[in-house]
């Protein structure tokens, strides 16, 4: 990628915006020359602002030209960090928190205080599905074939539709370039073995790239006194392929595909008929996708792209009792998503660029949790536009909007307006505002789920709740209604109105700072609503658009090249995330807390309400990256801090241990008198040496000081040592 960066460094100097756009088109062909060969003198501090990012506008733009908060994690940084899975990379970024989804699947990502369900995660611009219980399991994504990860904060529903409230994370995978062969093996703590390799070649008009990965871990056990493991052993395989073909200098096609399979072996102790019984079982997860993209340039002014994306996700879990092998638990979930889309980019002139597009989505979900194995469908048609106006080199304005029409929740319009003003060479201001939305998910619509294992409760989606409650009622199983069922139904999309404002500042020569202040006002949040109690005392829940919340804060990043090959960076985020109704009630003096020891009730003062669960007020990081290309040595020292936070009332447990909720004073909200999960810092180090540009040896330690919090932070394994060897061969091959 190095040549591409250099190209941009030079192209950017031209005043014409059209030229940098054309430059970015050249990038695609120029990347064919790009190799893994490091160029002497290219330090890590290289012109980060000139790197190209596609997520923010759906078109290639240099980072420095964009008026919204964007960041980019390049491949070399991912390699230096020694990361294997997507969650390893994201957890070290400022403002991003990988939060455990206790009763759900794995880990999700929190951006600007939003729950993981509110960040859209894309691979090459196409969404990853499998939000089985809300969030995506980030460890499904191997990072070995990632060219770069782009992160756009703030709502991007104006381009991407549902789920892009907090932001968009777009994983850009490698494209065929030159001839290359890479093979890598890594072994570490917990018998974790990662083997991956890729081959790629380009021959005249054809480019082929193939990536394969096998990952195995024995998992880990944070509470050895209990039966079973905190994370059970699993093995997964990922295969990615991409074929590109240039029909002519004006027309090319890329066909990408992915296949993923994971098997996990479970052993749990469960409660059955009053005694603790051991179970054993399996979980299998698969996904695949198919993504042809046809690009044609009608003229210098008009480029059109036709995309097709089809993806499928399925997961199946079962547990058998060890005693007699009988089935104790079974759960399955299948989802598919198919989307044709057309979009076009039109350059009126160097100051005016229009992008328009439209598409159609068909989604299907099937799960035992809906009480039947029927397929549930949802269709969405959408159209979007984006207008980029660059009246002067110092000023750019991007206005866009998208309209989605969905078969269930109806129409949604999501506008966005961003602008950028370059005050001088050292200071650039950016401001953007927009609306994001998240459609009610299948769970909230169709759940018909009775959990007899964990205390006993049922959850009914709004589309089935009324009928199902009537059935239970007719069977005499309802003891009490807590909410009028007639008022259920008609779930609306959740919406946020957001503003991001900030600046990029060169504080001192080479000391760069970026600052972003954000405010997100979220309405129509869907929350569980207790609806009834059965005669056997089980609660029945459904969903309603009841909550209002806001998140606001400041994010800041500093970067400073201490020496030519040594870069120091620091990041910090301050976050306030609060339930608006609770905040207002506290202000009105209507919220109380009971001292758990004296049992005396007191009024909560404004300022004593901490906010939503699982949000840290402070988080930060400090990183040193060393990259000495001449000698082949590289290394890193990263310190990641997460401040204290509260844990909500999570119905569930980890490995037989009940997770204590933070609220200890009987008001169901998180206030400063409650119990918090302590703040903590993780220290990760790595070192690598590349010999003759082809053989690379790396060792590293993650969580150097072995910090764990067994019950409260189940997704934090202890200290992890690893060592890896990789070999890469690449050959320049000049395009005709």
């Amino acid at each position: 990628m190095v040549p591409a960066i250099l190209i941009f460094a030079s192209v950017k100097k031209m005043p014409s915006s059209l030229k940098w756009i054309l430059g970015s088109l050249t990038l695609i062909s120029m990347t064919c020359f790009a190799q893994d060969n490091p160029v002497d003198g290219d330090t890590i501090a290289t012109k980060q602002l000139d790197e190209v990012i596609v997520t923010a506008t759906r078109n290639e733009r240099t980072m420095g030209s964009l008026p919204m908060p964007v960041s980019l994690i390049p491949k070399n940084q991912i390699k230096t960090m020694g990361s294997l899975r997507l969650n390893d990379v994201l957890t070290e970024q400022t403002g991003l928190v990988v939060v455990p989804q206790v009763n759900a699947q794995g880990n999700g990502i929190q951006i600007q205080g939003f729950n993981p369900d509110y960040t859209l995660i894309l691979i090459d611009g196409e969404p990853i599905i499998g939000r089985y219980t809300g969030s995506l399991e980030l460890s499904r994504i191997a990072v070995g074939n990632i060219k770069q990860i782009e992160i756009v904060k703030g709502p991007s529903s104006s381009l991407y539709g549902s789920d892009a409230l907090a932001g968009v994370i777009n994983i850009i995978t490698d494209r065929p370039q030159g001839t290359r062969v890479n093979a890598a093996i890594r072994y570490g703590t917990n018998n974790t073995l990662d083997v991956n390799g890729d081959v790629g070649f380009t021959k005249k008009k054809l480019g082929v790239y193939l990536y394969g990965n096998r990952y195995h871990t024995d998992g880990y056990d944070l509470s050895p006194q209990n039966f079973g493991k905190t994370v059970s052993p699993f093995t997964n395989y990922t295969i990615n392929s991409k074929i590109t073909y240039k029909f002519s200098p004006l027309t090319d096609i890329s066909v990408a595909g992915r296949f993923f399979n994971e098997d996990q072996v479970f052993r749990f102790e469960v409660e059955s008929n009053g005694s603790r019984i051991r179970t054993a079982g399996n979980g299998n997860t698969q996904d695949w996708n198919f993504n042809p993209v046809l690009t044609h340039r009608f003229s210098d002014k008009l480029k059109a792209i036709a995309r097709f994306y089809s993806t499928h996700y399925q997961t199946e879990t079962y547990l058998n009792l060890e005693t007699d092998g009988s089935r104790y638990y079974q759960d399955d979930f299948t989802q598919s998503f198919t989307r044709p889309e057309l979009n076009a980019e039109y350059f009126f002139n160097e100051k005016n660029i229009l992008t328009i597009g439209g598409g159609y989505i068909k989604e299907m979900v099937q799960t035992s949790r809906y009480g039947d194995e029927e397929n549930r469908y949802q269709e969405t048609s959408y159209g979007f536009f984006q207008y980029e106006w660059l009246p002067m080199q110092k000023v750019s304005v991007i206005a866009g909007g998208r309209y989605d029409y969905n078969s269930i929740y109806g129409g949604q319009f999501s506008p966005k307006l961003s602008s950028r003003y370059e005050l001088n060479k050292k200071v650039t201001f950016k401001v953007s505002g927009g609306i994001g939305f998240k459609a009610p998910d299948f769970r909230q619509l169709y759940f018909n789920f009775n959990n007899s294992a964990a205390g006993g409760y049922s959850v009914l989606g709004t589309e089935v709740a009324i009928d199902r409650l009537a059935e239970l009622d007719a069977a005499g199983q309802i003891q009490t209604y807590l909410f009028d069922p007639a008022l259920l139904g008609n779930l609306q999309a959740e919406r946020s109105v957001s503003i991001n404002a900030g600046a990029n500042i060169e504080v001192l020569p080479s000391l760069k700072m970026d600052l972003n202040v954000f405010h997100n006002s979220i309405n129509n949040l869907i929350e569980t609503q207790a609806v009834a109690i059965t005669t056997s005392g089980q609660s029945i829940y459904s969903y309603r658009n009841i909550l209002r919340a806001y998140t606001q804060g400041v994010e800041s990043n500093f970067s400073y090249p201490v020496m030519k090959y040594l870069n120091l960076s620091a990041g910090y985020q301050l976050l306030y995330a609060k339930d608006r109704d609770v905040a207002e009630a506290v202000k009105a003096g209507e919220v109380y807390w009971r001292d758990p020891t004296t049992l005396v009730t007191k009024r909560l003062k404004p300022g004593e309400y901490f906010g939503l669960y699982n949000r840290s007020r402070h988080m930060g990081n400090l990183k040193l990256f060393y990259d000495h290309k001449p000698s082949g040595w590289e290394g890193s020292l990263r310190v990641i801090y997460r401040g204290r936070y509260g844990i909500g009332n999570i119905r569930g447990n980890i490995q037989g241990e009940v997770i204590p909720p933070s609220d200890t004073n009987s008001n169901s909200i998180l206030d400063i008198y409650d119990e918090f999960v302590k703040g903590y810092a993780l220290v990760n180090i790595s070192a690598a040496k590349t010999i003759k540009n082809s053989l690379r040896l790396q060792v590293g330690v993650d969580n150097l000081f072995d910090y764990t919090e067994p019950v409260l932070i189940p997704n934090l394994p202890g200290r992890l040592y690893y060592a890896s060897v990789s070999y890469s061969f690449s050959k320049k091959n000049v395009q005709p």
Partner: protein
Amino acid sequence: MKSTLSLVVLVGFVIAFTGCSEDDEPLPVVATTFSNLAADPGTGFNPSTGQPTGLTRKFTLFSFKTGGIIANTDSATNKWDLGFNGTTIIVNSATSGPGTSQAQIVSGIFDELNTAPDAGYKSDNDPAPIAGAPNANLAIPTGSGQGWYTYDGAAMVNRPTAGKVIVVKTSEGRYAKMEIISYYKDAPASPTSTNAARYYTFRYVYQPNDTKTFN
């Protein structure tokens, strides 16, 4: 605990002395704590479901006037004000009993509530509840977060919601205020699902005179 207790004792003394000197003044009222009112605790519980076993399904009846429990054989009289069974609390009126007791939940701090509200009292299930759900419209609503308690699903315990004061107007037209402080036997500071449930501990003030004030 200490400071609050001594304050209550002090207030009690002050009121007691002033009470003695002026005979016409109504007798002073003091906060009383009633501990471990057994609300059909059953004979045991099923550890897998957490549900109690051996339930009588009968309400334990309480009178503010006597400050004690009224025998269940008197359920058809207006001797009692409140009845307790599990998390359900009934008042002696309408569908629950022959009396005219009414109640409402007021948000606030028990000690700060010096006067009973003029209006807002309800009888049980008046108006009639949702069809098929006999106790859906009680004066003291049932359900987690709906009335006096919040269910903590992780710890599997019911916690009396802080800042909920139950104000009762008895069949005799007298007023009482109460705050439930525990649902578990002996009111442990941090109850767990292994503590014996369905034992109410509450503080109350009963005003025997014809006034709405609680001091």
